[in-house]
């Protein structure tokens, strides 16, 4: 049996879909953020897998993943700051409370 790229891509994709599912269903904003991390992580795996299996001469995919991790960290930090801000204002972090503005 040969472990080819698809063998990594599909679990990564499933992970991504889990992230999607979680993002859509979870009501806790931090849980949504967790789902987002799953998605980002899945994409990172994609980059790395492509790099390794298809274009191993250079490390472009790997570096993209590297930078993506950095950026993901930054946005997580920022998002958490904002969520905490909301928590201060609304005393909860239920996403359903974000309904002041609509239509």
């Amino acid at each position: 049996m040969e472990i080819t790229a698809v063998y990594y891509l599909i679990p990564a994709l499933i992970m991504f879909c889990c992230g999607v599912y979680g993002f859509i269903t979870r009501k806790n904003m931090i849980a949504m953020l967790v789902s987002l991390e799953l998605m980002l992580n899945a994409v990172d795996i994609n980059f790395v897998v492509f790099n390794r299996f298809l274009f191993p001469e250079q490390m472009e995919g790997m570096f993209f993943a590297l930078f993506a991790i950095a950026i993901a960290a930054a946005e997580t930090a920022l998002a958490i700051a904002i969520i905490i801000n909301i928590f201060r204002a609304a005393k909860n972090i239920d996403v359903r409370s974000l309904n002041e503005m609509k239509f």
Partner: protein
Amino acid sequence: MKQEIALLVVFLLVFLYDTFLGKGAQKGLPAFTAILMFVITLLGLCPHCCGVGGEQTAFAGMYATSPVIAAIKNILNVGVVIVLIQSIKWTNSENMSMRRGEFYELLLVTLFGMYLMISSRHFLLFFIGLESASLPLAAMVALDKNRYESHEAAVKYILTAVFSSAIFMMGLSFVYGLTGSFYFQNIYFAVSSNMSILLVLAIAFVIAGIGFKLSLVPFHLWTADVYQGAPTSVTSYLSVISKGATAFAFLVVMTQVFGAVYSRVWEWMLYALIILTITVGNLFAIRQRNMKRFLAFSSISQAGYIMLGVIAFNAMGLAALMYYVLVYIFSNLAAFGVIGAIENATGKVSMDDYRGLSKTNPKLSFCMMLAMFSLAGIPPFAGFFSKFFIFTGAINQGSVAIYVLVLIALINTIISLYYYLLVVKAMYISEDEPVVATFKSAASERLGLWITVAGIICLGIASCVYTYLLDTTAVSAMQAYFIG
């Protein structure tokens, strides 16, 4: 590179000013920033800076600049200067005293991100630019601490933005998987031989990712909430500068990366998106009473028009897009200037509060009316010219389908005219008692409005702007992609 460096210098100076100068001097920060931006805008406008000829690259082709790129950056600079001028009153308010410096720093960083987006010829740099242009904005959206909407908008923005960048990265990973490179040029040559389902999906994801920032339907749903919740200055920045930069970057990506599969893949995607964007934006805008939300939907539909410059897939479209962005900056900022002035003075942002405004504040209403007319594309205001040229550019593409598309867009202009006229109606025609009493707006606000009004009136009639853009784009490196 010069413009980026200049911008970073400004950033640094603002940072230093903010950090080290005493409390008494802090009130001078907004003006200081505005003046600095004004200076670098002037520097950017000098011919030496704009450069001549085709594309020059740095960092082994990762970064590129050309007269066209310099021009769009200049356009953004002009917009930023106006935004800065208009925001002086707000940032100098008591409420903002603790966050004054941060506002400017964040703003400059996002501008820097946009520069990178525009200039990058490598997807990693592009991605970083995109994120730089959107993440700090979330913080900016949250700046108005007294309003819950501001926080709500920030959360909505950051969560959806990250989701969108995940999708975008997914698309990028597929592109990478197919072509093995992040360099635009390498991808460009590789895509047509790698035509596959995955490529289509990748392009769809990339469009979705960038379309999020452009607020193309159906990736637009955050727009209205965020525009409404954000402080007015941030909204105006978000709606014009961010949108303009992304539009240009979008064009660059679509042509320089996926240009080879234009007619095979993404032309039709854009058709659908444009029709949806314009129509849905318009339909939502009809019902809005909150001015900021109203302008959010209006900006969604404007984004659809801007996309006509992309689908045109030619130099005229490119020039028209840039010109449209420029005119849109002036028109929309005029509107936001008025909204901001009224909000700062009275805290009112509902269209119902604008009833009878012409009786109490004739000059403000006049500015607002010009802005509305310009947005609706009424001559002799600049909006007319930009609309006309973007249609002309689109039709230059030549297919029959584009005529249909333009016709749909044109019919939509009628709907848009309707809701723009609603504002005019509220201000001029409504016979109710005026809600907003007469007030005198701050000098900075007046200055901002004067500039925008002058732009609305002059930009179209003075043909040199558009002519310059068209001449520049006609000889740009992009031309090779359009033809090839």
